[in-house]
């Protein structure tokens, strides 16, 4: 509690607050522009944080995360294009409501729902994280290995499209992570006698290539895609008390769904929005109204995707396991700043952890105020021609890729991964599992091999230690779950 109060106090000093404000504003604007996403802007910002104080760097990045998740609703509502993937479900009711002449109402409901989702999930983030970290700090290598295994399984199981393709994407990420120095013995491996590969494929070139360059190439291919625009006023953006009375249960339920799905490693806001929207529809007295511009649909989707942001921060700060692709980037930020992600972070750098928790709340409040005030202006900005943005994004990618190791080789690596990422997109292979596999695999390998050293070369503790066994069972069930649901839907 003491640390949290100190962190709140720190946030209201000039520099951290400027970073928070910048993060939210940039995040909302970027989130609103289709083709740019929170992941892209955070990846591009990472190299800029090299010389920043670690707490300020994390405040900036977390604020961008909150802002970009919320900003996606503006383009989803006004252009029928999700600014961020998490706003996908908002289109279903947001756009029809806006088209029916009520864009202000649609956006107002979305902004308020995002705010409530963020608030409710923050309570869980602040109260669950410290005790969870206290338990997790007692975990040995096998517990951490089996937990990482669950994360890897979940990612593939819920990846968009085919599960096999998701798994294969994760395997490619794991393969890429293994090049260079063997994390357990320190020897070289899989370098194919290339001196440049001895340092392995570094984090920033890989992430910038996979997430940003691939999207730039896709945007150039789709540059002629027509965009639907709505020209309307933004009156009545505020919810009335009657609206609140009608929707409070949906707000609460969607917040809980979003938080819970966010907590599950590797899933993130898009799945949270889908689950929450489907639940709201199934429980509604008027399910036929969903998809035609109902408030319930907007509220369910937007509450859940924002709640997932704070939910996903729980495994990140307590266990060092990313809850979504953007969390992988935050994990990368911790590594770049020489911090060890995981339960020890609470003990070793409490100012960082509580800084993240405090920033998540204040960024949510700032996002609410900023979006209510500036949405009409942002809605004009989002029609900016992407041809102006792409050259700048590529140059930032070059600087980012180069800056981690001061090698031009990394810039070529970034381009290579950009092309691979684009080809994966065209083959409908999600790049999310790749990124998460790339980050998690070294953790899994090091922990398994440490466990073998610790337990006299025995694998048995993997199933004799209760926590490890529980995680192994969960991993196994997660692997089987998609097959089970598929066969059930076939029977129907």
């Amino acid at each position: 509690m003491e640390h949290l109060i100190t962190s709140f106090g720190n946030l209201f000093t000039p520099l951290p607050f400027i970073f928070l404000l910048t993060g939210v504003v940039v995040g909302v604007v970027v989130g609103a522009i289709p083709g740019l996403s929170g992941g892209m802007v955070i990846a591009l910002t990472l190299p800029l944080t090299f010389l920043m104080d670690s707490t300020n760097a994390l405040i900036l990045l977390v604020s961008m995360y909150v802002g970009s998740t919320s900003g996606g609703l503006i383009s989803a509502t006004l252009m029928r294009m999700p600014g961020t993937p998490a706003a996908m479900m908002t289109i279903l009711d947001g756009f029809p409501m806006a088209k029916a002449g009520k864009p202000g109402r649609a956006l107002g409901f979305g902004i308020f729902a995002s705010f409530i989702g963020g608030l409710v999930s923050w309570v869980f983030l602040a109260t669950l994280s410290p005790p969870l970290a206290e338990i997790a700090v007692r975990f040995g290598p096998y517990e951490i290995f089996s937990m990482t295994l669950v994360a890897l399984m979940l990612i593939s199981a819920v990846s968009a499209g085919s599960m096999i393709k998701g798994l294969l994407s994760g395997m490619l990420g794991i393969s890429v992570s293994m090049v260079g120095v063997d994390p357990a013995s320190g020897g070289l491996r899989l370098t194919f006698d290339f001196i440049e590969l001895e340092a392995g494929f570094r984090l920033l070139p890989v992430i910038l290539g996979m997430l940003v360059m691939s999207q730039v190439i896709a945007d150039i291919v789709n540059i002629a895609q027509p965009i639907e625009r709505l020209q309307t006023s933004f009156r009545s953006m505020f919810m009335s008390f009657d609206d609140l009375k009608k929707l409070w249960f949906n707000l609460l339920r969607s917040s809980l769904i979003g938080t819970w799905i966010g907590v599950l490693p590797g899933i993130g806001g898009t799945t949270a929005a889908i689950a929450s929207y489907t639940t709201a529809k199934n429980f509604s007295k008027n399910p036929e109204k969903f998809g035609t511009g109902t408030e319930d649909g907007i509220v369910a989707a937007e509450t859940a995707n924002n709640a997932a942001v704070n939910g996903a921060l729980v495994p990140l700060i307590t266990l060092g396991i990313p809850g979504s692709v953007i969390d992988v980037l935050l994990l990368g930020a911790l590594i770049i700043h020489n911090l060890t992600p995981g339960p020890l972070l609470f003990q070793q750098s409490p100012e960082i952890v509580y800084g993240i928790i405090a920033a998540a709340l204040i960024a949510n409040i700032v996002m609410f105020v900023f979006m209510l005030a500036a949405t009409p202006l942002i809605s004009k900005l989002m029609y900016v021609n992407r041809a102006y943005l792409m050259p700048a994004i590529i140059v930032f990618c070059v600087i980012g890729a180069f800056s981690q190791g001061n090698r031009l080789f990394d810039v070529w690596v970034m381009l290579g991964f950009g092309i691979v990422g684009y080809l994966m997109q065209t083959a409908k292979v999600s790049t999310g599992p790749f990124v998460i596999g790339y980050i998690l695999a070294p953790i899994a390998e090091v922990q398994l091999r440490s466990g073998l050293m610790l337990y006299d070369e025995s694998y048995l503790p993997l199933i004799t230690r209760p926590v490890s066994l529980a995680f192994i069972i969960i991993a196994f069930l997660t692997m089987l779950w998609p097959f089970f649901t598929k066969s059930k839907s076939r029977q129907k």
Partner: protein
Amino acid sequence: MIELDKKLPIGDLIFAIFMIVLGISYVIASFSLPPPALEPVGPAAFPQWVSVIQIVLALIIIWRALTVEQPTAKPENYRKRYDLALAAILLIIAYFGVLQFEWLSFQWATAGFVFFLTALLFDWKPRKLPIAFVLALILGIGLKFTFTEILYLDLP
């Protein structure tokens, strides 16, 4: 039974074949790694396990691509600009080459790249060229100044 006249998902096949080639090369490379010293796994085991799993998964994708009926893709209501993307990639390669061989300094190489790419993306419309020129100067000189003089980061 494989129907030869049905449309094959080429993207799936290329991805799967790439993964198989990668897996095989990892397995071969891992044989030259030293044996385990401190624990029974060693540096070679993980690459081998992962490669075997990825080869099996890639074979499943190939099998599916050849046997399972693929849903027909919805036609787009606009022209996909693969030509533009290819030209942009070639321009990016030229930009990286200029930086690699130090033919131009960062700011001028960047300014040139930004100008040509912006002009290319606007199909060389004459009224967009002045904007491309200004954007090129701002990004080239502005970024060089910001990163080296304010943020103290090295640039290529």
